[in-house]
């Protein structure tokens, strides 16, 4: 940890240009997006999983439309949660494997900001597409068209919070073999409030009522995750790379 604190002084002494933290974060965000877009077929996997899981509910419970509408919010949110959890496994894995994560820690830039950039890239590639696909799957579950915008909005807020909390779990399980299940066990208790408020907001939206209350709570969770999540993830990454 001391090495990272003295790096800016070292780089200044050696004559290397000082890079502003936001510039470094933007560069990291762009790099992550560019790398992921080179493997476009892998981006579809969380979406396919989401669609499959959401399809399981009407097949397993009941295809009758009134019952479907009742279980639609829960099915959508559980499906999105599980899809996001599976995708979170890969947030740091590649960079930890090839040593990039170590370089980020040693770069002298604030690690929390860099991890926020990585999480933002991950969200743009998984959380955002999941949120945009949710109304479509909601339609197959009988969600009325008036609720589509609300469903997307709740999913966007919820997936932001989930990505940030998931980053903590992904950082904690760095380097553990077959960490997918453990990651889910660690993240799910912390993700339950998001699920509760998100499903509540979706239910209210389907009924045509105001979603202000659960949305505000979801926004509060998202802000909490945004401010404190990267700090916890940075501590966890440093521990994982010791």
């Amino acid at each position: 940890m001391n090495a990272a604190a003295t790096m800016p002084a070292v780089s200044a002494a050696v004559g290397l240009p000082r890079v502003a933290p936001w510039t470094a974060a933007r560069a990291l965000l762009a790099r992550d997006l560019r790398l992921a877009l080179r493997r476009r077929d892998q981006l579809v996997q969380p979406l396919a999983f989401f669609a499959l899981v959401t399809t399981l509910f009407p097949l397993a419970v009941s295809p009758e439309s009134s019952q479907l509408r009742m279980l639609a919010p829960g099915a959508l949110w559980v499906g999105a949660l599980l899809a996001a959890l599976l995708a979170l496994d890969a947030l740091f894995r590649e960079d930890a494997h090839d040593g990039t994560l170590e370089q980020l820690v040693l770069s002298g830039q604030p690690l929390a900001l860099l991890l926020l950039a990585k999480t933002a890239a991950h969200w743009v590639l998984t959380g955002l597409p999941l949120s945009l696909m949710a109304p479509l799957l909601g339609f197959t579950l009988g969600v009325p068209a008036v609720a589509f915008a609300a469903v997307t909005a709740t999913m966007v807020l919820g997936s932001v919070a989930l990505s940030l909390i998931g980053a903590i779990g992904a950082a904690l399980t760095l380097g553990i073999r077959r960490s997918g299940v453990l990651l889910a066990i660690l993240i799910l208790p912390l993700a339950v409030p998001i699920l509760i408020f998100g499903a509540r907001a979706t239910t209210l939206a389907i009924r045509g009522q105001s979603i202000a209350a659960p949305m505000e709570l979801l926004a509060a969770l998202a802000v909490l995750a945004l401010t404190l999540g990267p700090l916890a993830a940075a501590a966890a990454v440093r521990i994982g790379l010791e």
Partner: protein
Amino acid sequence: MAWTWFHRLGSPPYIYRLAARLTPWLGWAAGLLIVAGLFDGLVLAPPDYQQGDGFRIIYVHVPCAWLSLMVYTWMGVAAAVGLIWRIKVAHAVAAACAPIGASFTAAALATGMLWGKPMWGTYWVWTPRLTSELLLLFLYLGYMGLRSSFDDLQRADRASAVLAVVGIVNVPIVHYSVVWWTDLHQGSSVSLTGSSIATSMLVPLLVSMLGFTLYFGAIVLVRLRAEVLRRERTAAWVREAVGA
């Protein structure tokens, strides 16, 4: 100079001997208080006007629930101390607390279910209080699972410490869940400023809670000694202490 006691607690042989000295006191005091509290509560206290004799499970349920939160708080504080000051003994304390806290949480949930069936008509309702207590159990299990998935002890300590500190956010949620939301579970009837429970029922409850707390103190010290022995098994003082 004022902090030497704190740093002395971080010395494994010191805490090993201190724990050995404290455990009998805590254990016997706990035993007496629990027996007294339970006898008073199960036999002497009058039956409730509404619940009859069924309310007496409160003398086990409330101490278990209170301890499930208190143990997590201690675990989180010890984990934070270990993370910030890098004191190994603090990590040992957190590791010792976890299984005890998980057991108390499971006991609180189980006694709550046994109480709920006759009184509410159901074993379980998905209300904030019960749901957040269940999440507390999962947080304990996640902590123990994360700890056991590392081979390197130092990494296991520090990673699970981060998890413990992050999970502390659940403790106020469990505590205030009956204040923030309308809940089938009753609101708090005992607080620092007073209580709405009749004295003849309140006294055995407080005695029982104190007894259970001292019991936790005794068994956490026993577990801590075992944990310290395991971690320091190659040290010279261990060989002397164990007498091998």
